[in-house]
């Protein structure tokens, strides 16, 4: 990152109550091999600056990719225009809000730099992995892919804040689709790029990328022959690549303070959680411990500081089943008078920060996977998210998985297809009967969490052990 840029940002900074400038550059590469045929390389180089001005009680922003002095000056004028327009009309009293003035640098992990491996070698690896997926004529579509993004950012404030961050995001993907007449089943490597992590080529080792193909293809074929998932109220064991979705939708989103404040009511929705619940509300059974943790370097949404300059810190959100704090940034904390976390995040240089999950994790318990299976007389073990839907207050949910096995008399007995379950967030977590130990933890995430007006699609991470729930409404296909 050129020093010249920092000097330009500083020079453009106006004399106002508070001004921040956030420069961000993302360089992407997507490589895909589908049906053993390499697809064209997709590369992107996206850079711009977000200027935020708080002045006389008003708050305005302007984003531009014109990084010339005149372009920055124009953005400053625009942000100032909106600060003036909103002064006295803002739902946030920004005049009394002290913004952080952080100092520091954070560089995320990248043990084997992505750029250290040639394009040809990467395609060879993808092609070999792709070839292993085609194990049968009934495998009709199959694909392997890498998506790497190198991000560098600089955040400077009129209060003397300066933070530089450099992150390497890697999201591999793999899928095998099997078909027989009107039946199609797909298995993926942890859902939609769910194996995303921060790091370089070592991420492939973490998710067993080279070895996973054969099993995925075999499981897709097994699903073609399988009976439908049974219908009924029964124990449900969720693998960590479904737990990530369960945490995300029914803990993460309802605990965002901007939803509770009503900002999202026109689009992403509100929350069944109300401010008075923090500190006392029993969200789950006493086995439930949930942490917000942007400090685990390998997780997808780790950082040193959020986009409002708050320092990353691990915090318990739910402890022994009791709701402790919400997912709210410096701004939301001040608006609600509640503690929050460092989660003021923007998806890119062209969007302002709002309350977002980063890494939201379930802490491990004591049970082995075998012990949890042994506890079940008649139930289902579900893996890998396939379908997700939840109401606008994040309560009534219905989720589906790619793959399931029946549990009978304490043993996994047979594969069942089209597994789905539904419930209420407000009661579901109270039926948590067992939490897997460390060995059952999977580290997952998604690059596709949508929220905000204007809309923002952001990266989040979720690490979780397998978990066993009782009395869940489970069902199968049409």
């Amino acid at each position, binding site marked *: 990152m050129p020093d010249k840029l920092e000097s330009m940002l500083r020079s453009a900074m106006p004399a106002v109550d508070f001004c921040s400038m956030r420069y961000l550059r993302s360089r992407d590469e997507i490589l895909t091999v589908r049906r053993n*045929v*390499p*697809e*064209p*390389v*997709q*590369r*992107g*180089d*996206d850079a*711009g600056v977000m200027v935020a001005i708080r002045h006389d009680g008003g*708050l*305005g*922003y*302007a*984003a*531009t*990719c*014109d990084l*010339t002095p005149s*372009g920055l000056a*124009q*953005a400053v004028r*625009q942000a100032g225009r*909106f600060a003036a*327009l*909103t002064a006295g*009309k*803002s*739902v946030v009293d920004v005049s009394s809000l002290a913004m952080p003035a952080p100092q520091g640098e954070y560089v995320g992990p990248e043990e084997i730099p992505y750029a250290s491996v040639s*394009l*040809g070698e990467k*395609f060879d690896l993808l092609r070999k992995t792709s070839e292993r997926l085609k194990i049968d004529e009934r495998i009709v*579509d199959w694909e392997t892919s890498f998506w790497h993004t190198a991000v560098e950012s600089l955040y400077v404030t009129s209060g003397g804040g300066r933070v530089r961050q450099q992150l390497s995001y890697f999201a591999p993907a793999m899928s095998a*689709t099997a078909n027989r*007449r*009107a039946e*199609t089943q797909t298995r993926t490597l942890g859902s939609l790029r769910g194996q995303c992590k921060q790091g370089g080529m070592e991420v492939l080792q973490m998710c067993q990328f080279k070895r996973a193909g054969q099993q995925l293809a075999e499981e897709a074929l097994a699903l073609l022959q399988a009976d439908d998932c049974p219908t009924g109220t029964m124990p449900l064991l969720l693998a960590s690549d479904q737990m990530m979705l369960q945490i995300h939708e029914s803990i993460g989103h309802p605990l965002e303070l901007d939803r509770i*404040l*009503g*900002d999202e*009511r026109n*689009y992403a929705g509100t929350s069944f959680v109300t401010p008075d619940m923090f500190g006392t509300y029993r969200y789950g059974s006493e086995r439930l411990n949930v942490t917000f943790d942007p400090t685990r370097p390998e997780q997808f949404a780790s950082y040193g500081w959020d986009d409002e300059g708050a320092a990353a810190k691990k915090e318990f959100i739910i402890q022994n089943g009791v709701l402790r704090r919400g997912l709210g940034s410096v701004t939301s904390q001040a608006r609600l008078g509640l503690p929050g976390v460092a989660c003021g995040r923007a998806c890119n240089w062209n969007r*302002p920060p709002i309350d977002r999950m980063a890494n939201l994790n379930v802490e491990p318990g004591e049970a082995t996977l075998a012990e949890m299976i042994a506890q079940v007389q008649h139930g289902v073990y579900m893996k890998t998210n396939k*379908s*997700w*839907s939840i*109401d*606008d207050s994040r309560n*009534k949910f*219905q989720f*589906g998985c790619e793959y399931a096995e029946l549990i009978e008399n304490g043993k996994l007995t047979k594969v069942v297809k089209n597994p*789905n379950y*539904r419930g*209420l967030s407000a009661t579901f977590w109270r039926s948590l009967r067992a939490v897997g130990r460390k060995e059952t933890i999977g580290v997952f995430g998604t690059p596709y969490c949508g929220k905000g*007006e*204007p*809309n*923002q699609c952001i990266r989040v991470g979720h690490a979780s052990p397998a978990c066993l729930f009782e009395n869940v409404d489970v069902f199968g296909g*049409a």
Partner: protein
Amino acid sequence: MRDYFYSLADDLAGRCTGPEVLLLGFSGEDSDFVRFNRSLVRQGGAVRQQYLSLELIDGDRHAKEIFTLCGEKTADLAKAEAVLASLREQLPATPADPFLLYAAEVHSTEQIGENCLAPTEDCLAAVLKAGEGKDLVGLFAQGGVYAGFANSLGQRNWFSSHSFHLEWCFFAKNAHNDKAVKTSYAGFEWSPEAFARKVADATEQLAILARPPKTIDPGAYRVYLAPTALAEFVGLLGWGGFSLKSHRTKTTPLLRMIESGATLHESVHLAENTREGLAPNFTSAGFIKPGRVELIRAGRYGECLISPRSAKEFNQPVNAGMEVPTSLDLAAGELSDEKILSTLSEGVYANQLWYLNYSDMPAGRITGMTRFGTFWVEGGKIVAPLNVMRFDETVYNALGTNLVALSHRRDFLPSSETYDQRSVHSSRMPGAVIRDFRFTL
């Protein structure tokens, strides 16, 4: 902006050597966004973004990069030349692509929208005024959206549109404070009178939301899906439903239509209507889209959307860019507005559906929620707002055997999505009365 893009294209096309072909794409916007909560401003700002893509083709090898422009010619040209050199360097290591296809015939077009937008300040003042004494939450967005295509063969295409989109809710002050009337006002020229009418209509509906809400048990009910609700239901089918690739790889949610002869109701005629939509009519490979593609004719599967890549892979003609609809058009039925409530008689009147997803994709089964402006109807009259319900129903039931009627009136629904950039997608939808629509939670 058009002239700037064409000028860059002229310069860069001249840098091609030998058999090289260069495809250029432009996308940009210059937008104001004001976000509201509790009838005040939450965030307000402006976004200016410009992206140029270069795709260098040499025989059956090609490489592409998209990058931001600053708008200053010398700097942008230098950046583009560096990208071009990098693409040229990559090509030998890039595998040959058997499915590469781009437009070889030159077909230049221009769709230029006039800028009649009112100052953002005026619109902001009008929205704040409308929210006085009420609980208003939403987003106002307006400005220019631009797209361009050029190639070294001489083709030039340009699209510009200057539009606004206000989407807001009035929340009722009831016990749970969770019921709202959602309204959109979108167009190219702000009309204080038209906005006032929208506000008055929404205010009138608020009165109904103040009544005690009703909760229904899971089960099968008659429903009326208003155009905005039906757009959500039909729109989900765009996720793989009309793509040639998903048809040939058996991953389409309409699999039973192509494998088992399943059909929808004979009154269902669905098209990709580019001619009457808001999106550009050219693709990133330089193809011109047909004005209309008939996706479903009289309940039977018609044509697929075919990208250049699928066209080459499956030996079909190109008729789309990405294989997702941008301008869905469902034909009107015969049910008049006056007869909607009496035809529904008793059941659920849903203005909005929310968070739809497939619960059994090969079977075409969809789950989702009711959301804003959903009411319980008895004796052909709206009697109470309805607490949110989850549905889980197949497209073959809802738009097939259980479809009672489609409304005669259709709504034109510009998309309010702003992921990455302001959307130019839209749909034209009637409403639908459906019997035995299954609610599960």
